[in-house]
């Protein structure tokens, strides 16, 4: 604790806004979401996803009046997504951009730790979600590169198909009077040492 006390004191941030907006808005219809800050981000910063028509002063007034949160400054930027195609091969279009704002808070705010425990994530059915995501990603990767899609005869043959085809081959050899490999003919109920029987035929 003594080392903590010896730390240099940093001045508490003070709200420096002289006044707030004067236009009264009774029924605002905006959706503002608070986002988890990046690792190592200061607890005095809070990130918001805001509507595109919002400006810094709007967010400042919104937080002040609706949530009682005081800010010292606000930064804003727009995340422009990459152009996409409809249904993979359809026409190109540009998805809607997302405006982000980072507010500097007077009072610090620390988020709770992200939930990583599998037991705690059970209500969201996390295990099944992950499995589906993995399969979907593998499928997408496969479809993206046609060269990597294996030919029909390169697919892995299932075990049951393998054993049936081998049995058929043995039968054919038997019919031709050729020597039969005992290895592949493992029929239930047959005891060992019956090589001779087959040989006799």
């Amino acid at each position, binding site marked *: 604790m003594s080392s903590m006390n010896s*730390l240099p004191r940093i001045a508490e941030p003070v709200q420096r806004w002289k006044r707030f907006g004067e236009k009264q808005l009774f029924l605002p219809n*905006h959706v503002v*979401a608070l986002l988890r800050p990046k690792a190592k981000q200061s607890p005095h910063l809070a990130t918001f996803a805001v509507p595109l028509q919002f400006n810094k002063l709007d967010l400042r007034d919104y937080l002040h009046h609706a949530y009682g949160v005081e800010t010292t400054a606000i930064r804003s930027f727009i995340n422009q997504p990459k152009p996409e195609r409809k249904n993979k091969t359809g026409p190109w279009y540009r998805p809607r951009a997302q405006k982000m704002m980072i507010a500097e808070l007077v009072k610090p705010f620390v988020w709770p730790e992200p939930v990583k425990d599998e037991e705690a994530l059970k209500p969201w059915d996390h295990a099944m979600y992950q499995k589906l995501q993995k399969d979907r990603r593998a499928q997408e990767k496969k479809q993206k590169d046609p060269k990597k899609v294996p030919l029909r005869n390169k697919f892995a043959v299932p075990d049951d198909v393998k054993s049936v085809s081998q049995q058929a081959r043995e039968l054919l050899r038997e019919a031709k009077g050729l020597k039969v490999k005992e290895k592949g003919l493992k029929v239930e109920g047959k005891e060992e040492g019956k090589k001779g029987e087959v040989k006799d035929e």
Partner: protein
Amino acid sequence: MATAATSAVRPSLGAAFRLTPSPSSVRISHQLLSLTRPMSTTAPLLKRHTYPGARSNKDMSKSRGQSALRRTGLRWRLSMSDDPLPKPRSREELPPVEVDPDHGLWDFFPNRETVAASPEDDMKHGRGWMVEELRGKSWEDLHRLWWVCVKERNRIATGAWERERGKMGFGKSEAQGRDREVRVTMRGIKHVLTERFYAWEDAVKLAESDPEVDLSGKGRAFTPREFLEEEEAAEAKVVDYLVEEEVAEVKAEEKAQVPPPETNVQGEAARL
């Protein structure tokens, strides 16, 4: 300082200074050199000529040679030059940040521990408010309910971002269902307010042709005209009508019950 001065001078001259301590002895030594050496046509000592109005040759820049990029340091000593520079601390050493339990940003979270609400919790909702239920509410109530809806939508959006960014799992459709019901309520509020606006517009139109209403904004807006007098007159009329009826009834009764009283009258008249 001394080294800086020597390096500012040209190296050949600096070497001369180093050999001989004083400038007066330099002159002497040159004369000696000229005596001992074979004759030369070069001047023994080159002296910079100054002329009136010549530019000062002094270095006017006091901070020459100081560079933050080259880390040269300062040329002058400062009062804090001996103080050690503060060293940055690692995050672990810093005291934990105390978060106010009443911080306004908590209102963005559906759940304080997990941030995102579980699909089960998201499903715990009824239907939105219907227009019929909202019609009886005052503006203050509707306004309050609107803000409850706005904050609930923000909460749902925050939970959705956290669920998707943190790859927590399923729950999108439950959150959307909840959001839909909130929007139903908001739509109902707008519906009721629009209805009230239309009713007000119609009332204004009616008031323009109503002689009892004054829309000029001066004096009383509504003045009932001769309302009480009319009522009295109406009552008087009713009374008259009733009296007339009574009289007619009495007459009819008299006619029916009493036989023609001519004899009696005659008798009375006789008695009188």
